[in-house]
């Protein structure tokens, strides 16, 4: 057993922390949130040069072939800074999806561009009824000669407003099938949704969008399998980001409780506050250690479906618990836009829905336990 990160991994963690501390302080986070684009291209370009985007891609496609653990370290540090960017939609979700399901030709073409930050891709999976399930994918892709015609709407598409390409999960006669389309193509329009995360969730409309066969990802009917594979890693990566947010929330609150005085004493000396904070710390530590175990299982290629669901359900609930207590301990100031803890309180709710809410994952566990 060895439950430590390597020196190189610790260095990676430090460099992400230093970069984001300098490039994207919390005031910038608020500015990005308030902007129409919801994205800072300058930071993105600088970040692309640091090699974080290609780090987990296989070497044959210009990546570094580093373990999945390294990707989660980056996500964790981004979570600490509440950093808004298309890293998750483009590098994590789409990148992993392409590695799992795209043809050699597609991978050689697309992955290097994602890795250089030049190309932003996102995934359009969910529809109006908000289902996470395979049956929720109904948008028809009708065969028309050599092409397919896509018609309908996709909901909760992250970063569709800034993405260059979309991976659309649609239904053909064979089942769920994935299509790669240019987001600026004819018949495609989007509208931003107003979310608690102040992120780039969009509704994307497809009005008879023509896609050629070359732009299928995987074979017809293979889409759900590819989505499931992607979701395994992407869910865990999101949990790492969420746990970074938990850590920052606890650190911020601890510092505040030591410094804020009432009745001539720091409020951190009151047992009511101490017990809240102890519970927050337990929630964080236990979830973090479990993250490490699940990340290790993935890097080792050990089947981890129910563990991944356990992790997401756990982190969903604990992030909300921690940030709720954190705002409570901050008192009135914690509820203001100018104070940073609110960034995390909102993200806890927003991220709860990413790749499955708690009830969805409970049900997955129940299925895996053959109940």
């Amino acid at each position, binding site marked *: *057993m*060895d*439950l*430590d*990160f390597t020196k190189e991994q610790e260095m990676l963690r430090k460099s992400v922390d230093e970069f984001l501390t300098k490039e994207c302080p919390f005031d910038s986070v608020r500015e990005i949130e308030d902007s129409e684009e919801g994205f800072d291209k300058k930071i993105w370009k600088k970040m692309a040069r640091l090699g974080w985007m290609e780090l987990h891609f296989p070497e044959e496609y210009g990546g570094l072939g580093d373990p999945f*653990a390294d990707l989660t370290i980056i996500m964790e540090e981004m979570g600490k800074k509440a950093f808004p960017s298309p890293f998750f939609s483009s590098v994590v979700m789409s990148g992993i999806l392409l590695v799992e399901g795209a043809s050699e030709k597609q991978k050689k073409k697309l992955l290097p561009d994602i890795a250089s930050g030049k190309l932003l891709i996102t995934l359009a999976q969910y529809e109006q009824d908000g289902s996470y399930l395979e049956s929720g994918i109904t948008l028809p892709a009708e065969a028309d000669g050599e092409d397919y015609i896509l018609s309908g709407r996709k909901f909760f598409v992250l970063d569709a407003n800034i993405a260059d390409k979309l991976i659309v999960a649609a239904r053909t006669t064979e089942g769920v099938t994935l299509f790669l389309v240019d987001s600026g193509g004819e018949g495609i329009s989007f509208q931003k949704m107003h979310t608690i995360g102040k992120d780039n969730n969009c509704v994307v409309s497809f009005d008879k969008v023509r896609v050629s066969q070359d732009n299928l990802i995987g074979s017809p009917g293979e889409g759900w399998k590819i989505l499931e594979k992607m979701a395994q890693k992407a869910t865990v990566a999101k949990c790492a980001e969420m746990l970074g947010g938990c850590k920052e929330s*606890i650190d911020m609150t*601890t510092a505040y*409780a*030591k410094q804020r005085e009432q009745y001539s*004493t*720091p409020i*951190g*000396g009151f*047992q009511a*506050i*101490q*017990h809240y*904070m*102890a*519970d927050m*710390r*337990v929630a964080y*530590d*236990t*979830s973090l*250690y*479990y993250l*490490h*175990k699940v*990340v*290790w*299982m993935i*890097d*080792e290629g050990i089947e981890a479906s*129910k*563990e991944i669901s*356990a992790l997401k*359900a*756990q982190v969903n609930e604990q992030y909300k618990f921690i940030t709720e207590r954190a705002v409570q301990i901050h008192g009135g100031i914690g509820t203001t836009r100018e104070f940073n803890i609110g960034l995390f309180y909102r993200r806890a709710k927003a991220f709860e829905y990413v790749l499955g809410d708690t*009830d969805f*994952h*409970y*049900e997955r*566990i*129940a299925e895996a*336990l*053959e*109940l």
Partner: protein
Amino acid sequence: MDFRLTKEEEAIKQEFIKFFDAEMKNAPPEFGNGGLEGIYATDEGFEFHKYMARKMGERGWLSMGWPKDCGGRDASIMEQVIFDEVRGYYNAPGVDGFAVGMFAPTLIAGANKEQKNRLLPPIARGEAFYCQGWSEPDAGSDLASLTTTAIREGDHYIINGQKTWTTGGHKAEFMFLLARTDPDSNRGKGLSVFHLRMDLPGIEIRPLLYMDGKHVYNEVFFNNVKIPATDMVGVEGEGWNLTRQTMNFERSGAGGFSGAKRYLEKIIDYVKTTQRDGRTLSKDPNARRKIAELFIASEVGQTLAYKISWMHQKGDFMGLITAACESKLFSTEMAQQMSNYATEIMGLYGQLEAGEHAPMDGSMVELYQFVKGATIFAGTNEIQRNLIAWTGLGLPRLKFRP
């Protein structure tokens, strides 16, 4: 990062599994669902505890982690954790929590050579059983305020006072006692640790029955009890420091979490084999959600136990204090949740303690009651939270009025 056991560790795990799988078939019906009630509430249960202790003693398992010069073999932390984990899964008795878990480490840390030679081997062989003389009616969480006195008179100490919550005091042959050797001292100063026999004149043991009527706890009264000065352990007046050194801080809680996994397997088996409202209970959405929650808690808890062992192995002792408090807090509240959820899932049958109709032999109803003790004893969960806030987060400590 590597969570895998080594080949040697896997092999030893198999050896433990083989042993417990075979030996636990010898459990008498009175041992019931095990735990402290299984051990202490009946003569048959305690006999089985002794039987298992001797079996483990023969294999050197009770002393495996002790230093070589104390008769142990310096086994690795991992080996001890694996042992705890397997034993916990089988809910097996035999590792006396007071003798092996608490007094032996105290002796190793503070006893003189003669005492180590005299007192450690019977514990290692599984022949000596202890109870713990710490809590008093007015000294619970604030243990250092205890008032039982041990006054030196020539070659002896004379003990007067009262101890309470003495688990197994009616079965154990020995007690380790924390008493005030300096009657003018207060709090942590002037306390000393003693070994004593429970059948000495002047000792009176009264049962303190648990809410379900079972006899686990006792009150112990000392009226001019005379014990030889050679049974004072460590330096007179330094007993508080010696006690604090060995206060559970190094425990991973691995056994508790694997025990929970075993219970969860049984809950799953129950819902899959029970029909209600025209369907299998496992198809009930509430049952599914509750079981998923319990699965998560048991998974997360087990990883915490591994992390604690790793901290121990690395010598991260500050981290360990926080993590061990987290483990006590997490495991006891998880057990509370488990017994509550399981009995909720059982519906009307969730009230049956025993008998042919009781699901899971009443184990969850028993746990529902006994776990309420677990969130209180061995440092209440509030004390654990204080310690996490102080050592883990650096928040200001409580100020005591002198």
